């Protein structure tokens, strides 16, 4: 799911586990390493800088090491971190990732917002701006074009 704002990605997921447990998975280094990326130097403290060692995302010009910082948090409710590319990466990515937890039944709905993509960076979102404001509706129009084609 994407919004009409091409600088932001929004994904949400229902997790059949209570918020306090999900919060631990988001904030304890050994648990973060299991589902996201190893980040041995993570500490839940605003202003604390840490690095992620991950898989490269070549399409996004991401070499694999994320330079992050805890920007804000509210226990069991919200965690916002900076998500920056390494200076040596092709991408000049300087974005933020916000995890928001909302209780839902016996589980948790996790909202993830990855914001701050720079539309002028060809490795971040060149493709997004190609269609300008017409792009969000394009997939539907594309499907129609395929249907009506040949």
């Amino acid at each position, binding site marked *: 799911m*994407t919004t009409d704002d091409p600088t932001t*990605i929004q*994904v949400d*997921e229902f*997790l059949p*586990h209570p918020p306090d*447990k*999900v919060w*631990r*998975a988001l904030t304890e280094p050994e*648990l973060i390493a*299991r*589902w*996201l990326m190893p980040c041995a130097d993570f500490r839940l403290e605003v202003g604390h800088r840490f690095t992620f060692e991950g898989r490269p*995302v*070549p*399409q*996004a010009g991401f070499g694999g090491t994320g330079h992050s910082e805890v920007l804000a948090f509210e226990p069991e409710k919200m965690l916002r971190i900076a998500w920056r590319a390494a200076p040596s990466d092709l991408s000049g990515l300087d974005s933020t990732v916000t995890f928001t937890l909302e209780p839902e039944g016996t589980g948790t709905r*996790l909202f*993830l917002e*990855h914001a701050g*993509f720079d539309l002028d960076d*060809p490795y971040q*979102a*060149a*493709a*997004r701006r*190609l*269609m*300008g404001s*017409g792009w969000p509706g*394009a*997939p539907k*129009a*594309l499907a*129609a*074009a*395929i249907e*009506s*084609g040949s």
Partner: protein
Amino acid sequence: MDQGTLTDEVFAALGNPVRRQLLRLLLDGPRTVTDLASHFDMRRPSVSEHLRVLRDARLVSERRVGRERHYRLEAGPLLELQDWLHPYERFWRAHLKRLHETLEDM
């Protein structure tokens, strides 16, 4: 998919406002060169030249209908492009799947 091909050919073709506008017009369905040219303040041969670039990048295809040439969008490269433009969405979806597994094991 071949990232190199997509980047070099398709992106070069798309790096021009006239050609992007041509694609927008074609999103509504096939159009004739005459129809397409009517949307631009330039001579028809210039529009045809832009269409040629789009055709070379396989973003559009041309078909002759009588004396008119009809252009239509070729969805393939654009769908690849759509896939290309959301690498982080794929990234997060994959990792959220692993978050499920991590929570199960906790």
